[in-house]
């Protein structure tokens, strides 16, 4: 029996490889907080990822060291609400001038966080005039998820 030619195998693998190379978005930051996003049905996809900055809020992953009080994470470290203004300013500075109006801040917040810290963050964002925001959620039935305790 003649062996099947595997000469085209590299081609196939390369094709897959290019697909993944093009679609890959490298993980930007290492998460230091636990986030289980809530669920909502009226969701939209964020369009231009380059124009999105992320703010993470949740309980620290390392609870032995950092306790269980929800914390804000900007870039790779914990932050206080006051630091958001500098964070937004830095991001704005790094963005192309005619695209600045399309900048979005995506809030990735754990569902069980209390609104107090979220309100503080929102106030800071208003002060920084970063008004376009996105509450990051899963897509699904919001009420059912709420009843199920998620």
């Amino acid at each position, binding site marked *: 029996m003649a062996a099947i030619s595997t000469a085209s195998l590299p081609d196939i693998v390369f094709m897959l490889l290019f697909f993944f190379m093009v679609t890959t*978005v490298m993980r930007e930051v290492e998460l230091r907080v636990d986030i289980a996003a*809530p669920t909502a049905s009226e969701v939209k996809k964020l369009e231009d990822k380059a124009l999105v900055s992320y703010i993470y809020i949740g309980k620290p992953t390392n609870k032995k060291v950092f306790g269980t009080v929800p914390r804000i994470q900007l870039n790779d470290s914990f932050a206080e609400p006051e630091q958001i203004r500098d964070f937004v300013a830095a991001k704005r500075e790094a963005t192309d001038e005619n695209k600045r109006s399309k900048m979005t801040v995506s809030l990735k917040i754990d569902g069980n966080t209390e609104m107090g810290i979220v309100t503080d963050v929102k106030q800071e964002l*208003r002060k920084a005039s970063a008004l376009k925001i996105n509450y990051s959620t899963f897509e699904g039935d919001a009420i059912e998820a709420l009843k199920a305790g998620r």
Partner: protein
Amino acid sequence: MAKREIQEINAGSMADIAFLLLIFFLVSTTMDTDMGIITKLPPMPEEKQQDEKVDVKERNIFVVLVNRDDKLLVEGEQMDIKDLRQATKNFILNPYDEPDLPVKEIVDVPFFGPMELTTKHVISLQNDRGTSYKMYIAVQNELNAAINDLRDEFSLRKFGVRYDDLEDQDKIAAVETVVPRKVSEAEPRNIGGK
């Protein structure tokens, strides 16, 4: 001169190299497309404007309060979150011209013609510092859902397509005139004490 034979390069390991790269990208890929509820925050009021209060009549405001036990108080009455969507729709449309729902005005909307709309209505959302984020999102979601449902309804009736599928900017603007998105979040303060 003797013709030198061109040696063929063994490409057998090419697949291995490609596989190695492929696996690296497979592992490092995050396929998460970020989704969520997109909103706009109101700009920070100027210092001198701080005390100024916008005068809106009681009947034009739809007050939604969420306390720190995640209980919902809508227009002074307790409500289950599953009824919020219908209540919001009823408030925006005021179909039976009830006196405690917002005032109607006749507006000439492009494509739709003259319509009776509750132009002055405002949905006011207030939450406590102790409200859980998932409850807040659920409430936001229901308010948005009510508005989107109504927009879909008008869009389907007039143009035969859903609001999201409308492409003509004028048509989108027309539907948004019929059902505007007027959700206002109060300046933070504590409700229900603590």
